């Protein structure tokens, strides 16, 4: 099966493969993972966009941008291969449970829908329909004359402009377009529905979804029966890590300009820390102690913010020695801090935790880490947000998101309320919150007259 190729060299919209069968291509192991990560970035950003209530037009635009940013290959001719390979890798990743399959199916179908809508030429669209074996005849002029009144009636009944003689209609067995039939959006006669070109999307998407749904079940079977075991030293660890991976910058290397000294900490904690880190910081100042989970979460965050190792040691020592004494600090806690900076043990330079990781952690008694949006009681959360400066109206929006378990969106709304500015990308990482916050504050300081 030849995937469609766009005729224009510089066309920003990639061709539209249907992923009917796994391609007989060779992939480097490195690319196996990287391609998948790029595609996953697209899918997750789409998911984000949808849950933020973007309308179809906005989503089309978003998808166009995402594809351009993530799915291109240095060699333009390789774009299509990257597209296909990344899809099939993600099939392996997302076939393994019912929830994963549901999410993947939903996002890939949406992606397909928007890409189909982005196809500019009718020829391209008809070629896709042909690939799906939809042998629907376009309604002839003669037949059109006979039914155009009815077609006009239907158009008016669904708020569409009436069809003209140039509009193409397809005659399709009614059972192939259940959505259109159910909503009386088509004229039906003797078992055939008359589908407008713009309704063809529904046709095509239904088939795509149905094919992919079946394919995922088959992939799961193959995975559990053979692949997982066969590939346990090669692909399996990659596949298993991908479904839970965070996909943004990892903030392990703070940028040159971002150096923080201890004396700045209190100030920036108040102005630019996300709630989770603010809470840990305040608790540390209060109790002069944090348990392990808190030390990891806050410690790595501070590293990402730009706190150097020596300053970090001084900072933690200053706090902890008030509780446990300087000697015990050196004996029991200093090692851990150096370990976080990659100076001990196997010298892994640990990366600061992403929101995903923080949200999924489970703080116990005496712990203060985790995501406050998830773990705080409503009362405590309201109090904490109010101290951050979140106003009453924003507060309600935030609490609504919390109730629906959209913790990152709640944090994003908090950011927006506190900084009086929008955050289109959404918060995915505490260090991202910090950087964006600092950016806004610095630009406010630089512009004449402030704000």
């Amino acid at each position, binding site marked *: 099966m030849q995937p469609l190729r766009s005729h224009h060299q510089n066309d920003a919209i990639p061709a539209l493969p249907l992923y009917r069968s796994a391609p007989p291509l060779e992939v480097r192991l490195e690319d196996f993972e990287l391609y998948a990560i790029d595609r996953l970035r697209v899918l997750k950003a789409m998911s984000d966009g949808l849950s933020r209530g973007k309308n179809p037009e906005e989503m089309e635009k978003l998808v166009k941008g995402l594809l351009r940013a993530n799915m291109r290959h240095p060699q333009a001719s390789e774009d299509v291969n990257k597209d296909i390979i990344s899809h099939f890798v993600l099939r392996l990743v997302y076939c393994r449970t019912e929830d994963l399959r549901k999410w993947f199916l939903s996002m890939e179908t949406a992606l397909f829908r928007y890409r189909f809508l982005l196809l500019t030429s009718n020829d391209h669209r008809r070629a896709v329909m042909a690939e799906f074996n939809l042998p629907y005849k376009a309604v002839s002029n003669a037949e059109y004359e006979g039914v155009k009144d*009815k077609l006009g*009636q*239907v158009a*008016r*009944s*669904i*708020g569409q402009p009436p069809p003209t003689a140039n509009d193409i209609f397809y005659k399709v067995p*009614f*059972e192939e377009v*259940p*959505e259109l*039939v*159910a*909503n*009386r959006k088509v*004229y*039906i*006669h*003797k*078992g*055939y529905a008359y589908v407008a070109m713009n309704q063809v999307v529904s046709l095509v998407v239904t088939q795509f979804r149905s094919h992919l749904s079946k394919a995922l079940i088959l992939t799961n079977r193959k995975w559990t029966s053979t692949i997982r075991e066969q590939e346990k030293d090669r692909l399996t660890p990659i596949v298993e890590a991908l479904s839970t991976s965070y996909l943004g910058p990892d903030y392990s290397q703070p940028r040159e300009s971002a150096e923080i000294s201890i004396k700045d900490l209190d100030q920036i904690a108040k102005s630019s820390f996300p709630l989770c880190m603010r809470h840990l910081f305040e608790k540390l100042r209060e109790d002069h102690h944090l348990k392990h989970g808190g030390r990891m979460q806050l410690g790595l965050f501070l590293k990402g913010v730009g706190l150097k190792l020596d300053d970090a040691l001084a900072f933690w020592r200053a706090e902890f020695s008030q509780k446990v004494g300087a000697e015990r600090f050196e004996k029991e806690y200093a090692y851990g801090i150096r370990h976080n900076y990659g100076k001990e043990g196997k010298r892994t330079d640990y990366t600061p935790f992403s929101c995903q990781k923080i949200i999924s952690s489970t703080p116990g008694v005496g712990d203060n880490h985790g995501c406050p949006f998830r773990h705080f009681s409503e009362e405590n959360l309201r109090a904490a947000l109010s101290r951050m400066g979140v106003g009453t109206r924003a507060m309600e929006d935030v609490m609504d998101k919390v109730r629906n378990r959209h913790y990152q969106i709640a944090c994003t709304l908090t950011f927006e309320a506190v900084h009086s500015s929008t955050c289109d990308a959404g918060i995915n990482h505490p260090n991202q919150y910090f950087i964006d916050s600092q950016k806004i504050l610095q630009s406010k300081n630089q512009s004449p007259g402030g704000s």
Partner: protein
Amino acid sequence: MTREECENGPADMLIDGNKARAPREKQGNSVPDKFNSNYLKFYYGKLFPFSDIFKWMSYGNDGKHPGCDQTYFGRREFSFTLDNDIYLRFQSFTSAAELESSIQEKCPFKIDIGPVYSVDPAKRHAYAQSGDNVFTPVERELIFDIDMSDYDDVRYCCSGADVCLECWPLMTVAIKVIDTALRDDFGFNHILWVYSGRRGVHCWVCDRKARRLSNEQRASIADYFRVYKGNENSDKKVSLTSPALHPFLARSYTEVLEGIFEEKLLLSQNILATEERYEKILDMIPDESVTAELRGKWQEKRQSSISNDINVVRWEQLKQLLQSGKHKGKGLRRYVEEIVFSFTYPRLDMEVSKHMNHLLKAPFCVHPKTASRRTQPGRRER
């Protein structure tokens, strides 16, 4: 018979030539004192058409030629409700004789027909719930259930299980609208309408294509037919907001609904005769200036015309006001249609149609609560 004919069953089943008609009496007169199993035994012994049911449900597979699937009838589920409310599901039979002897032996008070499964229902436990070897429905007639008690809010003559000559036209209307759509729009041909034995009708669409529809496709047909929404908490049950009606609704209105409303129901139900009743209609018109003017006209005691029925007079006034353009509200004409639809448009039980495994009462059952009536097929008059 050609294979085509085989699979669709004998055309136009006319088991008996009776038209779908309202039962002649209401409940509770000249029937045996007690419905008891003796009568049932007799009925099953002498009258129940076993071989016709077998022939129907075989869809030609009871023949001898090599294309016939011998297992077909045996994969159909029947269910029996016995005397003491014992419910037996997943009954299956391989021949008319087996069907007959089981029914005569068990004397069920009610027989339901379910789908044709992938394997004999009696053997279902040997099969998985998912994967390749499943126990799952593979064929089932497309069915509709219209129950008179769903119309209680728009009929004043009866309620619940009661049915009379005044409100039976609602059933006739429903049958006409749905039947026409099934034939003209969906292209089905083998359609059986059956009085359900108590207070409504069932429709069995037996075309091969219909039997093989998925749940999603059945749901889409049911939704195509759905207009009635809302419950006793909403003022309006029907909302037709667009500037034009879909051709199916427009045809139903001009060919069936408008006529029956104006010529029969308006009068027989006295829809506008009293204040209580006309207020209900006025509630469906959100335009204050219109309702105020109508109310003003109708609250006068004297009747301007003695020869015309008050319902007719008032209806004319209502239509006049909404269609004349005298009042400036948007879409006022639509309310006339909404009122007519509310009172006449078919009200289907969605759940019955949507699932392949839904069990529906078999035609020719005798209903214990209405011993004088039999679930019987009717020939739809065109």
